[in-house]
């Protein structure tokens, strides 16, 4: 079984569910094994699910502007749990107010995220990243 596993969810006290469902649908259609934790997820929820499912990628969404606070330390927790090969993606409306995108991206990359998306990142962009990073063949 060569299907790649993606653990995804919305982090923190964030209940924006629509984008979460759209991304889940798109990734499934693209042939990925998607484990969707839904909204209101803690860092531990992501780490535990990734460990149990032997995930290839953790995809974190954050829409309510507190992404920086919620995401800090996730990479370290992954390393502690032995998930050193798991790629970390984050995307959404990550910070409050209009901040320079390059600065925001750099900030999250420094936190250990391999890919950082903005509110304009489309599901197809995510799929392209996954293809590049996992060099996998899409089912469809």
């Amino acid at each position, binding site marked *: 079984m060569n299907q790649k596993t993606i653990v995804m969810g919305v982090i923190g006290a964030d209940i924006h569910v629509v984008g979460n469902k759209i991304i889940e649908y798109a990734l499934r259609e693209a042939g990925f094994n998607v484990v969707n934790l839904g909204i209101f997820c803690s860092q531990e929820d992501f780490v*535990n699910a990734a460990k149990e499912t032997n995930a290839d990628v953790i995809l974190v969404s954050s829409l309510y502007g507190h992404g920086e606070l919620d995401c800090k330390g996730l990479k370290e927790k992954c390393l502690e749990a032995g998930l050193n090969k798991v790629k970390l993606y984050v995307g959404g409306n990550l910070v409050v107010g209009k901040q320079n995108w390059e600065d925001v991206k750099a900030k999250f990359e420094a936190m250990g995220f391999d890919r950082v998306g903005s509110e304009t990142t489309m599901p197809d962009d995510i799929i392209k990243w996954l293809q590049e990073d996992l060099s996998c063949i899409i089912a469809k």
Partner: protein
Amino acid sequence: MDLTLLIDFGSTYTKVTAISEQKGCFVATAKAPSTVNSDVMIGLSNAINNLKDILGEENLSFRRRVACSSAAGGLRMIAIGLVPTLTVEAARKAALNAGAKLIGSYAFKLTEEDLKELCMQKPDIILLAGGTDGGDEEVILHNAKVLASLELNVPIVVAGNRACKERIRQIFITAGKDVRITENVLPEINRLNIQPARECIREVFIERIVHAKGIDKAKEFVEGILMPTPEAVLRATELLAEGAGEETGMGEILVVDVGGATTDVYTVCSGNPTRGDVILKGLPEPYSKRTVEGDLGVRFNCLHIMETVGVSLLSEMSGMKVDVIESTLSLWARKTYMVPKSELEINLDQALARCAVDIAVKRHSGTLEKYYTPMGEVFVQYGKDLTSIKAVVGTGGPLVNAQNPTYILSGALFDEHDPSYLKPKNPKLYIDKNYIFYAIGLLAEINPELAIHILKQDLKQVSCEKMVDRSLMCRR
């Protein structure tokens, strides 16, 4: 009379219940002290003799004889998984639903120390889980290898990642172990699947454990020892909720079984949120769920209950002085067969049982927590919402034989002063007046329609005792 005999080989008592299939009714019940350590048949014969005395008949013939057992320490199980909140928890749930006495659980890779401790616990069965289907293989394979290398020779039920089933089978077979492979308890992160493991554990119980415990000495008399006693109670609960044949079920239901050593709670219900603005989190809950509180037996752990709720609360509830309570309970904990005599002692005994019910149902039920987010208030539910449950049934010696069983059973109800626990709000309350729940679970194997018919006759509806008692806010 043409009777069916239903037997429970318990740790303290061997209980027998006779029913008439022909007449479709309960006939009588009797008990005698268990003799599991010598010859189980002695206790059983004594119980049957007591039954004969009750019925006033010299010769009783039984058309069918089946039994369940919780004797010789119960079905001692160890659950092993990968992540504590995921496959370990799923494995624990499967073991409890199968009627096991859970004596330990382990997460991640088993260490040398874990293995030493595990052997010392003397389990009857080990349940090995780990990884969702297609998920992690490394940890469960490691755990299979180290378990296979142990001298310990007990049946191992494997309910982990489907992708490495065959490799695990080979590891155990090569080491000469008794291994059974069944479906994964957690095939996906959001899907619990404990029924196949429950069935598998029951098979092992019938084939191996009954013999290992020496209960099979009764085999010549008894047709079959079909399951552990708690499994029988869960089956009776399922039957009562769902119905069979012409007999309708009672719908979503909670049963609480108060005992001297443990207090068990069973629910058959979805437990979905009953309000729209709630986010459901945590591992999915099984539709049929059993929890066991080994620290809430009203005799063996009566001192622990006192410490948990506070002696002043027991004093308020019973009217007994604090120092008298302390000395009485120390005595009861040592002499667990003691029965209360004076009015105050009876009050104290009932207060203890009510507290045990209150805390056990709290632990079984889900919780609702309020969070403040940038988007406003959000309610998050963990576990089962039992607020809309239709019926609550009380069973177990200390409850059924009490002067005021309703008072004890009312401990299971929702407490407005402690609304975060989603306990039943307006259920009908029933008492299992002849204490036959285990027998119904056994009879369900033979004739489910008759079983539920007899159970319905046995249940006595009682009016709910609305105790406006702020002091009953027992801690968890």
